[in-house]
Each structure stands twice: as structure tokens, then as C-alpha cells.
């Protein structure tokens, strides 16, 4: 019996090592493919020559993108700035609007009706990509055509319902007695938000903020439709523009893609600890 148990344990360990290897390959192959193409020194059209290893690796394409040395990346830095503006504004507004709404819904007990408390989720009944056309016409009437704020508005609209959901779940873990004690001490609701609610909610706010930031960095279709001029374009749209030309230099495209991928990765791994904590504690409990 003992030998069998040991064999079983060895088999389980071997299987989990195998799974680790499979998951590593699964997660990294597309990233490796980006590097493989970006490191190709050839300017102009690259033929896919069946290479699995960079034969003559060169940082030339990264240099070209960073110095804006090709017409498709001529506004790269400006466009990266646009992407940053949209992402940061989306993050800030989602956190501010979401935390205020979640405070009112979960701590002030405005209503117990399930439909009112969860009404923000109705947003997801009509997915974002379905609303591009009415949204773009709307933006013209709001005077926000070809404006980065239009993208921020769309992102905030679709990030906030999830943010409120997560924040409400997390808030349910904080004893309501804290609010009541503060209230007895004469604190106004604004002071309770600032002194009690927000500090205790910090991990959930980090999780929600990162979610909003990644949503903005992932978003494409609104940026594509709503931002028409090259100056107002974002990097995501600029990258997709490479497909519109016949002999586009794919190594530049991949170099731009890799550079564009760095900011969210850095932010994500910096905040990772908080994200796990923010999602963890609210996940099962209501």
C-alpha cells in the first residue's frame, strides 16, 4: 500500500510538472512570435520563411519605431500619449464614479430591491461593440466627435458596472459598525467615504482600477471608429493600420506592438498583489 501511495504521489507531481510546461508554452508562444517577427532585420515586406528562431536578430525595428522613422509610425509617441490619456482617464473616472455609487448602494442602503442594486449590469445586455454606430452619432451631437473624451466616455460606461459589482462585494466584508461609529462621532457621509470607506477599500480599488486600465488598453473598435485623424489616433488603431497597406513592414508592426504592450504589463505586475487581494476577499461572499 505504501509503495502504491508513493507511486501515486510521483505520478501526480509528474503530471503537474507536465501541465506547467504546457501552460508555459501556451502562454508564451504568441509573445515569442511577436519577438521573432520584431527582431527580423529586413525592412519592407518580410516573407515568412518558416523560421522558428531569429537567424539574424536585430533591434533595428525597435529603433525605427522609437525614432518614428517610418511613415506608419510617424506619430508613435503622440499616439502612445493618446493611449495613456485614455487609459488613465478611464481608470480615474471608473474608480471615482464606481466607488461613490458603490458606497451609496452598499453602505447607505438606498434600496434593497435586487433590480435597482444590480441595475448597472443592464449595461451588459447590449454589448459595447453593438453600440458603436449610435454612440458615434451621439458623440457628434455632444460635440465630442474625434475627441479622446468620447473614447473615455465609452470605456467608463462599460467598465463601471463591473467595478460597482466588485466594489459592492468587497464592501460587504467591511463591518457596517465602522460607519455607524463614525456617524455617532458626527462624521458626514463625505467624511465616512474619505476616512473609512476608501482606505479600507484600497485593494478592491486597485483591482477595479487595473481592470479599467486594461479594458481601455484592450479596446479597439471605438478608437477605430471615433478617432479619424492621425494625430488623435491611438497606438492600437495605428497598429491595425498596417493591415491596410500591401507591403507593410511587419517587423515594425510587431516592434510597435511590443512597446505598446509594456505599460499595461508593468502596471499589472506592480499592482498584482492588490488585484489578488481585491478579488479574493469579495469573491464568494456577497
Amino acid at each position: 500500500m505504501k509503495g502504491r501511495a508513493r507511486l501515486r504521489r510521483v505520478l501526480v507531481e509528474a503530471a503537474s510538472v507536465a501541465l506547467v510546461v504546457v501552460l508555459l508554452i501556451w502562454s508564451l508562444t504568441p509573445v515569442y512570435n511577436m519577438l521573432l517577427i520584431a527582431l527580423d532585420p529586413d525592412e519592407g515586406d518580410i516573407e515568412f520563411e518558416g523560421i522558428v528562431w531569429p537567424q539574424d536578430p536585430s533591434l533595428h525595428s525597435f529603433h525605427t519605431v522609437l525614432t518614428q522613422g517610418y511613415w506608419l509610425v510617424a506619430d508613435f509617441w503622440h499616439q502612445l500619449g493618446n493611449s495613456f490619456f485614455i487609459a488613465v482617464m478611464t481608470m480615474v473616472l471608473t474608480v471615482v464614479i464606481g466607488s461613490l455609487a458603490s458606497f451609496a448602494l452598499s453602505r447607505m442602503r438606498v434600496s434593497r430591491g435586487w433590480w435597482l442594486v444590480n441595475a448597472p449590469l443592464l449595461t451588459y445586455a447590449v454589448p459595447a461593440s453593438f453600440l458603436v454606430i449610435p454612440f458615434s452619432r451621439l458623440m457628434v451631437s455632444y460635440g465630442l466627435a474625434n475627441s479622446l473624451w468620447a473614447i473615455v466616455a465609452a470605456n467608463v460606461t462599460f467598465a463601471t458596472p463591473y467595478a460597482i459589482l466588485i466594489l459592492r462585494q468587497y464592501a460587504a466584508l467591511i463591518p457596517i459598525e465602522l460607519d455607524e461609529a463614525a456617524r455617532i462621532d458626527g462624521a458626514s457621509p463625505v467624511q465616512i467615504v474619505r476616512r473609512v470607506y476608501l482606505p479600507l477599500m484600497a485593494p478592491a480599488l486597485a483591482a477595479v482600477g487595473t481592470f479599467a486600465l486594461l479594458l481601455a488598453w484592450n479596446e479597439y473598435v471605438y478608437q477605430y471608429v471615433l478617432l479619424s485623424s492621425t494625430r488623435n489616433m491611438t497606438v492600437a488603431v495605428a497598429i491595425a493600420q498596417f493591415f491596410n497597406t500591401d507591403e507593410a513592414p511587419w517587423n515594425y508592426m510587431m516592434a510597435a506592438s511590443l512597446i505598446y504592450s509594456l505599460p499595461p504589463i508593468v502596471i499589472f505586475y506592480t499592482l498584482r498583489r492588490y488585484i489578488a487581494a481585491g478579488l479574493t476577499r469579495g469573491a464568494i461572499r456577497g
Partner: protein
Amino acid sequence: MSSVQQVLAGAGVGHRLRGAIWQPRVHGSELAWAIAFLVPYAAVFLAFVIYPVTYALWMARDPSLYGDLVSNPRYVRTVVNTALYVGLGVNVQMFLALVLSGFFMRRRWWIKALLPVFMLPWALPAIPAYVSFHWMLIGEEGLINSLLALLGIQGPLWFQDRRLALASNIAAYIWKWLPFWTLTFVAGRTAIPQEVYEAADVDGARGFRRFAHVILPLLGNLYLVCTLLCTLWTVGDFTTVAMVSEGAPAYSTDVLATLGFQYSFDAAQPSLGIAAVLSALPVLIPITILLMRALHTRQVQL
């Protein structure tokens, strides 16, 4: 299972709040503040959800549009694609996420070290990731087929075959979002009190039995909520299909989001495009209501 149930009972199961539809429990200046806190979100909701949705419904108000859609084989095929894309994309993803979340709960250093790498697809922006998938699979000399060639296998032309192209889109979508849902389930498992595991141990429930009788009942509602939320998000997914297969071969892998886009912009028939996407509402609205109910149940049950 008695001790497990005791622990659960101790966690406070029971009363379901059956509140009135509108039952303010705050008064005076408190209520004023509550409303003030809700105003920013209410404004966003009215200006960017209610208004565009109403506008969309108004644009697609002509019933003949729907007749045009149904009589078009391309629309019918797109509906089938969307059902496959969502059905497989969501369910395979959720199942894998649930299984992998259990794997990531194991206390081994190499599994802990894998987690940050495994999260990478979530942090990687969608456009670069999907463009990479596109180049990885295109033609005879993309990375995947080159790797297969090393093994002496002649890889298929992924985007020349509808099934393979559809599968490529689904795989890319799962690649991108699996970490997000896995992390959610890891969070859910972490939130299960240690006493529950200990109680299950005392009762001799291990391995599959522990999963089926202890973890699944506890995670069941979270699984349902995630599945519903993921379904809503997947139906609206545009970027994957637009970038990975680009609808190839010959528009046969389009989903509703990309079809609506093409009708609206390439064919300059915005009303038809909107009608195409809005035709999913009879499915999406019940899912949303189910999601809201499931969240409410969860809130008071455990």
C-alpha cells in the same frame, strides 16, 4: 458530511431578503448625499447607455429589416458562428479556469512561479496579441506550421477552412481571457474558509469527492455568475474575429459583432447592421436578468 454542514451553518446561511422594490432606509440629508453619490453614475448610464440603446432601437425599428436579415444566408451562418463561438468559447474557458484554479491552489514553488507568467495574456493588449495570433497561423510558414514542420507534420491552412478558422478564433479568445477567470476562481477558492477543508478532511472527503460535495456547491453560484458575465462579454467581442481570422475564409467565420460592423460601415447600411446585432437581444436580456438574480442570491446565501 455533518461537520461540513455545521461549518456552513455557522457561516450564516438562511434568510433571503425580500425587500420592497423601493424602500429607502435613509432620510433627510443622508438621502440627499446618497443621491449625490449616485448622480455621476446615473448620468453616465443615461447619457451613454439609455440614450444610445434607445437610438439604436429607433434606427432598427423597421420590421422589414429583420425579414431581410433572416432571408440572408450570410446572417443565418453568422448566427450559427456566434452560437458556436460563444458556446465553446465560454464553456471551455470556464471549465478550464475552474480546473486550473484548483491547480494553482497547490503549494509548490514552481506552480506559484508559473502564475505570473500565466497571467501575461490578460495584461497583454488585445490588438498586439491577436495580430500575433494572425501571423502565427497565416499561410504555410507561420510559427505554428513551422514548428509542426520541424516535427515532420504538414500543418493545415488555418484560415482556409471554416472550422479551423473558427477554432483559431476561439483558441485566441480563450488564450486572452482564461487568466482573468482563473484568477477569479482562485480568489473564490481562497475565500472558502480553511475550516471547511478541515471538516471535509475529518469526514474523509478528498480529491474528487471533496471537489464534488464541498467545493462545487460553494463555488457553484460564482461559476454561474462568471459564465453569464462571460457570455455577455463574448457575444459583444469584436476584436478577436476582426483580427485573428478577419472573417476568412470568405466571411464564413464572422460573428454578429463583426457582421453588424460590416453592414454598417463597409456596406453603408447602418440600420441593417444595428438590426443584425440587436437581434441578439432576446437572448441577452434574459441572461442579464438571470445574472442579476444570481448575484442577489449569492449576496445573502453564504
